[in-house]
């Protein structure tokens, strides 16, 4: 048994203790707490709008496209912010790179618009 694996024994022990602790607390709680369920209590959310139907219901497919586009531009932002912070240090090369990156996304957007994806009709 190498040093390397001995280190993991510690991890394993911690994990085991963690699991046991949770089980113990929940177990004890389920034994000693009073149980008085009502339909309202068993709802997923106890306040706000009542959930209706199954969670596996279908969504209108056009929302999906908007969702997708949103994610794309979200990710774009994730890339642009770190670049902006270091823009000066990265110099013109960085500008070129980020412009190329944005152009790629713009191309996708143009294509989507031209294809009529964004028209709700």
């Amino acid at each position, binding site marked *: 048994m190498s040093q*390397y694996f001995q280190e993991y024994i510690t991890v394993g022990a911690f994990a085991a203790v963690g699991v046991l602790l949770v089980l113990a607390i929940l177990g004890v709680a389920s034994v000693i707490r009073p149980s008085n369920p009502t339909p309202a209590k068993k709802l997923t959310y106890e306040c706000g709008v009542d959930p209706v139907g199954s969670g596996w219901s279908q969504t209108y497919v056009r929302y999906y496209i908007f969702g997708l586009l949103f994610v794309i531009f979200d990710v774009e932002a994730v890339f642009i912010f770190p670049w902006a912070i270091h823009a*000066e240090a990265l*110099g*013109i*090369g960085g500008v*070129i790179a980020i412009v190329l990156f944005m152009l*790629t996304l713009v*191309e996708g957007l*143009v*294509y989507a618009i*031209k*294809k009529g994806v964004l028209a709700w009709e």
Partner: protein
Amino acid sequence: MTFAQVLTPPSVGWIAIAPEIVLGVGAALILLFDVQYKPKRTHLGLATAAIVATAFAFAIVQYDRVQTLSQATADQAADFVATAFPFDAMIVLDANAVFGRFAMLLVTGLGLAAGWRLFERLGARAAEGLALMLLSATGFMFMASSTHLMMVFLGLEVGSIALYVLAGITRERTESDEAAIKYFLLGSVASAVFIYGVALTYAGSGSMNLLEIQGVLARNIFTRPAVLLIGIALMVVGMGFKVSAAPFHSWAPDVYQGAPGGIVGYMAAAAKIGGFAALIRILFTAFPDFISTWGPLVAGIAALSMLLGSTVALVQDDIRRMLGYSGVAHAGFILTGVVAGGAGTGEVWFYLGVYTVQLVGAFGVVAAVTGAATSGAGIDAFRGLSKRAPFLAATFTVLLLGMAGLPLTSGFVAKFGVFTEAWQAGYEWLVIVAVLASVIAFFFYLRVIVAMYMEEPVDEAVAPPGISVRASLALASLITIVIGIVPGPLLSLAGEASPL
């Protein structure tokens, strides 16, 4: 830093990724042109062909550059590094990368021509199909030309995701959707496995640059071998999936059967080239000193692939599934060359080159016989083909015999090469398994040939294939025969293709 300095763009070895740029920009332009001007599909096809040809021209320029580089003297060392390892050594310009591009572009061109009827059927979505094809080629070419595991992974994803979509591009048909979903689900897990392997490798060596990894491992007695070994194993498994090696092959027959006929050949061939290019690069560049560890592992996968692929192919009644399982066996044959380590690079590339051409050609015939936008290809459709479509029957025969490895076809030279390398590397048992598998494999190829020539034709008439299909099939058969008779030039070209 002065303003002028800021404005001076860094000198970048653009030539090292010129073919990829051409393909990527070409794909974007095709999409934009399509939505703006609604060109004829034939024009789109010609434009795509022109893009592939331009990329090929750049690859030839690169080949020339690599030739010059190989003669670099010591005082040109700085120049050498700048040209050979541009982009902070994320990319490498070496014979291995260039040969990968040659193979990839050849397969793309052939696949485009052989599957042209599919793009015609796609109607308004033809441009999307073409762009996806170019993009996947871009991705897989990056796999061959990167020395950085992150780049390899990016290439893998670009290439694979494009292929997932291509598999489902005839989305009106449930079989096509089914193939795409299967391919996507299984493929993403394989990608995850691969990236986990990359992470563990990084943990074990402190770098993701293959050359640095090799350097680190050569200097140090590494401290955490298990992490590194698991990392290697996971990367091998991930690539094993891409090249459909057993036991990670289960997607291949189903996807080959379900995906639209016109694109299957390209899909199968491109994934094989990309996967093996990366596998060669990773194992030979980063872990040459670990060959005693991964060698037997790869050998085991190879043996299982060959035996499983060739026995299961025997009982398939669908030609596409049969070719799928034969692809599993061929992955095993190629891995037989990989176990030899760096010495086998040339043979592996040679095998890859000739096999993928045969594969694209064979699926091209299948598409011409059973339809470019359909799924499945029962053997019944091939009975008596020699009477109904002699050209297709003849080219299919040549390609199948090439896959079977009959002497005087390129397949024989390829098999002989990898077997020899494995034997000289001390894997006699693997060669015996390989010979056994190729003996078994002969049957199912022959079965198709017999069905075409010696059985009564079914009544279905085969629509005469178009000019591009004819040209590509003729070219693929011609390559199979010519390389079989004059293998010298390609052997020496592939022989140079070892990674830096």
